[in-house]
């Protein structure tokens, strides 16, 4: 591991001031915030992350979980994934979020990993994690050996000719389905970013994964109030029954009245270069009676534009079936 200076930030302003000197908040950042460390320490050992300064933000009081001002949920940036998954409000009102978190990683990792760290976790693409390989995300312009190489786990949506790395988060998929908003404090003050706008598509700059700039500190993530009477779930399909990243996953929620769908929302994981949500695909469900053919049409709309590679074409049908099954469950 490359050497670094360790700083314990006294408060958020101090962390932001230190982070402002990072050059970039994306790949190649010279300053990194340390929360749970489960991604950062791993990637520093691999030589993928080489910060000169590591700023500990675990003592800034950003670990709360409670009611947001609008009656929704306010989740502190350094709240542990375990605490969020088992929180009474989450279990009662956002069960898909609890299920998504508990479907990811192991208890040891969830005890350390945090809200913001989970959102910022990096792709598991093996070429990204191996500094001996080319990778446009890690070393811009060096090429993408995953295209034409080992890409069975990688994305079929939101890809570009430069990068097909999939976003590995389960938590973010459930948060996206719930219209999560990321709260950021930076050099220029505070701002709020809807989660769907927070993540960037790779395009021709796959080293840029989100909208964060040097000094930006995620302080919390908020969810609007859960819809009364909604049923939700998170369905994750993977190669092993536990402790494995998703091949495909779906976070779904629906409200029903007199046998018909009033509102339905869903997001897909494992298929996109970012957590994937297509509101137009959800919209065709409103007012309809639950029906497998209807759900399949919604899935087709959500997956329109998919560009599978040689090894991951199976994800297209697997994602359709995953979504149809999950929608069937919450509308039964």
């Amino acid at each position, binding site marked *: 591991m490359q*050497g670094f200076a360790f700083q314990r930030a006294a408060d958020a302003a101090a962390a932001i001031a230190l982070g402002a000197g990072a050059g970039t908040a994306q790949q190649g950042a010279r300053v990194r915030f340390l929360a749970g*460390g489960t991604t950062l*320490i791993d990637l520093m*050992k691999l030589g993928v992350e080489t910060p000169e300064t590591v700023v500990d933000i675990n003592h800034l009081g950003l670990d709360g979980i409670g009611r947001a001002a609008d009656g929704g949920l306010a989740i502190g940036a350094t709240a542990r994934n375990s605490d969020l998954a088992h929180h009474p409000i989450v279990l009662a009102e956002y069960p898909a979020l609890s299920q998504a978190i508990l479907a990811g*990683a192991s208890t*040891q990792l969830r005890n*350390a990993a945090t809200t913001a760290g989970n959102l910022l976790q990096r792709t598991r693409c093996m070429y990204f994690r191996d500094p001996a390989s080319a990778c446009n995300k890690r070393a811009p312009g060096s090429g993408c050996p995953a295209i034409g190489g080992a890409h069975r786990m990688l994305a079929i949506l939101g890809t570009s000719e430069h990068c097909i790395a999939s976003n590995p988060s389960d938590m973010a998929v459930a948060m996206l389905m719930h219209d999560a908003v990321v709260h950021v404090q930076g050099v220029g003050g505070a701002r709020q970013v809807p989660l769907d706008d927070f993540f960037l598509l790779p395009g021709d700059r796959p080293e840029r994964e989100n909208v964060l700039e040097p000094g930006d500190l995620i302080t919390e993530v908020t969810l609007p109030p859960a819809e009364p009477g909604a049923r939700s779930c998170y369905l994750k399909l993977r190669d092993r029954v*536990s402790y494995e990243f998703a091949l495909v996953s779906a976070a779904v929620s629906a409200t029903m009245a007199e046998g018909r769908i009033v509102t339905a929302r869903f997001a897909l994981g494992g298929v996109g270069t970012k957590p994937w949500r297509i509101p137009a695909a959800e919209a065709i469900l409103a007012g309809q009676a639950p029906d497998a053919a209807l759900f399949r049409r919604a899935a087709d709309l959500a997956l329109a534009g998919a560009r599978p590679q040689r090894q991951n074409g199976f994800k297209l049908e697997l994602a359709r079936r995953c979504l149809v099954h999950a929608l069937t469950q919450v509308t039964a």
Partner: protein
Amino acid sequence: MPDPHSEVQAAVTLRVNGAEHTLSIDPRTTLLDLLRETLHLTGTKKGCDHGQCGACTIHVNGRRVNACLALAVAHDRDEIRTIEGLAEGDRLHPMQAAFLQKDAYQCGYCTAGQIMSAVALLDEPCGPEDADVRELMSGNICRCGAYANIVAAIQQVRGS
């Protein structure tokens, strides 16, 4: 491994199994390397060193974590418990005794991590079934495949 010639040092006070240690360390030092190489508590094992195998599982402030993914310098004043801190003198922790009784290991390399996870699991939300235990123990890999007896040992302690 930390570079022994590094000039960057950081002060940290760790509480390990009830004993306090004030140390000056290279900030790159993980809790795992510090326990093993500096404090010579070699019961905690290094498997993958990337948070994937669970061999290095310890308790920090009562919760199980992977010691390989924790910078020691970030755990100033935290309460750390390792496999060496479970027994009271010659009296084994009930989970250690159950692992012996149920023959819940073969080569033994993963066993310290398995037991530290299993002890933590006793205080976690966990359903009653073997499948519930297997799910919550999935972060501890056993190359020898002693899983059936590991689950039996844990269930014996949970049932007692």
